[in-house]
């Protein structure tokens, strides 16, 4: 009985992807991937970034030939904890926790470990050394963007800064901003603003308009989140100040590429980690754990700097072309032991 089911799973796997014919060479349990199920328990899901992250998770799971169950709590912290318990009850073989609150996820993650289920966490600190943290390095993101700002504008400029405290990745990016301000006393932050009212870009645009009319001498806007940058760009355009102001940001999407490449666009550079790659890495790190290998306590996906000039020179119009023409953006050699199958198509939006 068991044998026949294994055979069927193998045949099904073989039909899906020829690479899986070699599945028996992989460490358990991936020698029999059709029997393996992992769960992705999400806190945030709305927006391009999270959509791309999911696609990366899906593609890596497909490459491994394992089953994926997506549980989406839609920003309900309590529900997210319940969903971890639900995943435990379903008997999944591994769990990826994507965002969430430390307070609600700490105990839930421990319960999963107690049930013998490996767990990795992306962008949420569950304060548990047995749970690897998948991170896009927010400090590196901010550093890359700000270094470009220094390179473009020198060490002294009047800045506007977009920030909403209390959001973990923004808080980490803020630390780097504070370091830069300490390091380069010529940076004069005359206005700090920000909101998460949605549509975020529209609300930020309204604020940025007010800021620009109160501080017409601003030359650099640091908006370390692409929705913020988009809003600032709208305001700069509306105020007719795109010749004077330069925008530096973090994160990227196809729409952002279009905005950066508009003629005379104030949006000069952004630093980004490909969210799809982060998704792939999350699953790979989990797979290593499941195969009793150690991905390390922190799995950091390195970011890439993307400038307006690069986009124009390479005529990049979307995330797919970005991944094709900037290989550093398409791949991360992280959590990739020899046996690990990689998604066939390059990572894209």
């Amino acid at each position, binding site marked *: 009985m068991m044998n026949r089911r294994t055979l069927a799973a193998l045949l099904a796997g073989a039909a899906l992807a020829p690479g899986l014919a070699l599945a028996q060479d992989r460490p358990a349990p991936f020698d029999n991937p059709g029997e393996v199920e992992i769960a992705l328990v999400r806190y945030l*899901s709305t927006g391009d970034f999270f959509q791309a992250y999911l696609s990366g998770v899906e593609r890596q799971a497909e490459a491994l030939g394992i089953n994926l169950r997506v549980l989406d709590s839609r920003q309900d912290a309590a529900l997210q904890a319940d969903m971890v318990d639900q995943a435990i009850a379903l008997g999944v073989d591994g769990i990826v926790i994507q965002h969430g609150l430390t307070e609600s996820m700490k105990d839930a993650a421990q319960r999963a470990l107690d049930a013998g289920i490996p767990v990795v966490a992306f962008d949420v600190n569950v304060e548990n050394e047995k749970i690897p943290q998948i991170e896009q390095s927010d400090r590196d993101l901010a550093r890359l963007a700000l270094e470009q700002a220094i390179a473009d504008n020198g060490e002294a400029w009047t800045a506007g800064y977009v920030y909403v405290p209390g959001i973990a990745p923004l808080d980490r990016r803020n630390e780097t901003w504070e370091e830069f301000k300490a390091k380069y006393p010529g940076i004069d932050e005359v206005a700090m603003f920000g909101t998460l009212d949605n549509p975020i870009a529209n609300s930020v645009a309204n604020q940025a308009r007010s800021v620009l009319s109160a501080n017409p001498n601003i030359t650099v806007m640091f908006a370390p989140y692409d929705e913020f940058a988009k809003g600032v760009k709208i305001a700069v355009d509306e105020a007719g100040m795109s010749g004077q102001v330069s925008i530096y940001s973090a994160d990227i999407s196809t729409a952002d590429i*279009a905005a950066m490449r508009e003629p005379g666009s104030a949006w000069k550079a952004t630093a980004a980690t490909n969210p799809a790659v982060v998704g792939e890495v999350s699953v790979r790190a989990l797979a290593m754990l499941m195969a009793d290998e150690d991905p390390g306590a922190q799995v950091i996906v390195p970011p890439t700097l993307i400038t307006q000039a690069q986009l124009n020179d390479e005529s990049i119009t979307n995330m*797919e072309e970005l991944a094709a023409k900037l290989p550093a953006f398409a791949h991360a050699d992280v959590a990739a032991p020899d046996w690990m199958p990689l998604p066939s198509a390059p990572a894209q939006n």
Partner: protein
Amino acid sequence: MSVRDLAIRYGFILLMLGLVAFFGLAASGFLTLPSAIFILQSVAITGILALGVTCTLVVGGFDLSIGAVATSALMLSAYVMVVWEMSALAAVVLCLLMGAAVGMINGFLIVKMKVPDLLATLGMMFVLLGVQRIPTEGNSIATGMALPDGTNATGVFSPAFLALGRLRLWNVLPLSVVFLLVIAVLVWGFLELTRHGRLMYAIGSNAQAAALAGTNVERYKVAAYVISGVLASVGGILLAARLGRGDVASGNNLLLDSVAAALIGYAVLGASKPNAFGTAIGALFVGILLQGLTMLNAPYYTQDFVKGAVLVVALVFTFALTGQQIRRA
């Protein structure tokens, strides 16, 4: 007129003038023409939505779906132009039709299926939030995006469409502000000067009496939701033209801000009832506050706090000072 009557009638306007004076002194550049025009531009979208919700408030209803209608129009216009590569005109027409259809369905659920208005429009809100994401599998829409069939979208936002949100008449007055002003005048005229508006007020005050006076109550209620849906889609079109892409967003903040504007409108000139003029002033009031506070570098949470405080004060003006029973708030 007693002091109390004067306070009820002009108190809120005075409060607004006082605020303008304060910001003018505290923030340099506040009392300038660009600043004034910008305030209008920043409230154009919520103002238009608020005028729609005012129409549903007038018939004693409520429309919770306007935020979702606006973001659906945002997605739809982007989809029409970027994926289907159709013209700006097609995008505008389809968005308006979508808004009207949503209003019809809301009206049908409320009038024929007897679903309470809050519940029907809440349901519609969730339906729209889901529907607008289905075609793109939750992705935002922009030129070059990957389509489910593996190709890339090649359509672009046409310049004519973008002009709706970006063009400035005489290089000063944004088109969206013109839309706000025109729609405000139209809605005001409709509600105050036509018999249709009069009958809608009658329905909101005493639907039974209106029906026994030979009014087609059901038709007017549906009409109110259609107006609300169409105006919400206009707001969504302007939003799309400003953003230049199909952003995935819930529109809940649009809903809340526009409802706040409509409710603040109850207090303007002591109307104690939903009215277009008050709604426009209410939207302006919120815009002035946010502009002034942002110019003074006040963080975003203080803005929410102030917005809430203004709403509470407005409701106190309306309910406590006038001492009237209002049918709906």
